[in-house]
């Protein structure tokens, strides 16, 4: 669970990015069933500034493809795996940047280029990882945040 002081700002950031760039909205529904066979697209990035940490997100391939298609304005059949992954990375970048700027308005953060997240939702090192799932039209968006 994301601490409550961060949760609403993260939700605002997710909503802002998905609605303005991907033309999808969060919905108040039960999370769709996810099986162990569901293929995911996962990206993460690190940030440094007034405080440091990492942010990541995972989306089922089917939903990630819709995000990428809407983001790039391309037919879903035309999208390459690279374009889908790169688009999810950009979504992670925009959500993280928007979220951090809601917490700290004066001092800047530096964000690294998003990379493939192979952690499979498991935190690395001793730092606690907070998680938050969002139900989006068509699927589940899993986010995580590590500070410190």
């Amino acid at each position, binding site marked *: 669970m994301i601490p409550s002081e961060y949760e609403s700002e993260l939700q605002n950031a997710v909503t802002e990015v998905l609605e303005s760039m991907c033309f999808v909205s969060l919905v108040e529904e039960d999370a769709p069933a996810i099986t162990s066979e569901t293929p995911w697209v996962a990206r993460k990035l690190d940030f440094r500034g007034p405080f440091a940490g990492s942010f990541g997100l995972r989306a089922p391939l089917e939903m990630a493809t819709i995000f990428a298609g809407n983001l*790039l304005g391309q037919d879903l059949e035309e999208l390459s795996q690279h374009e889908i992954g790169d688009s999810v990375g950009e979504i992670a970048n925009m959500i993280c940047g928007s979220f951090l*700027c809601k917490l700290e308005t004066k001092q*800047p953060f530096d964000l690294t280029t998003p990379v493939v997240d192979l952690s499979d939702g498991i935190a690395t090192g001793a730092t606690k990882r907070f998680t938050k799932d969002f139900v989006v039209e068509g699927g589940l968006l899993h986010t995580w945040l590590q500070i410190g």
Partner: protein
Amino acid sequence: MSYKVLIVDDSPSMRKIIRRVINLSGFDATTCLEAGDGLEALTVLDSSSIDLVLTDINMPNMNGEELVARLAADPKRSTIPVLVISTDRSEERIRKLIMLGACGYITKPFVPETLGAALSQIVFGGQA
């Protein structure tokens, strides 16, 4: 009049998004060239006549801050307007980029109207 725009971002997807949003905004950009970082941008600027540069900040090899500073310090290129497009909306970052020589700054995520208005402001000085 149509304009030749250089889009500088290390993400090919984001360059494609910006290109698409420029088209949606109605801004008249006949040609959009692309570069993956500041160094590549300087190479493109050496070989092409560019009316407007749109750049990200966090990039490998040469970041957006250094690119803006290099262009501002070069008498041959200092007149090329540079619009920064970044996820960072902190006051300090925006102030720094404007001081370095950027003529505008918009934050991601953005809608076509925002980018179109920023481009028109730069090109027409608010007389779109």
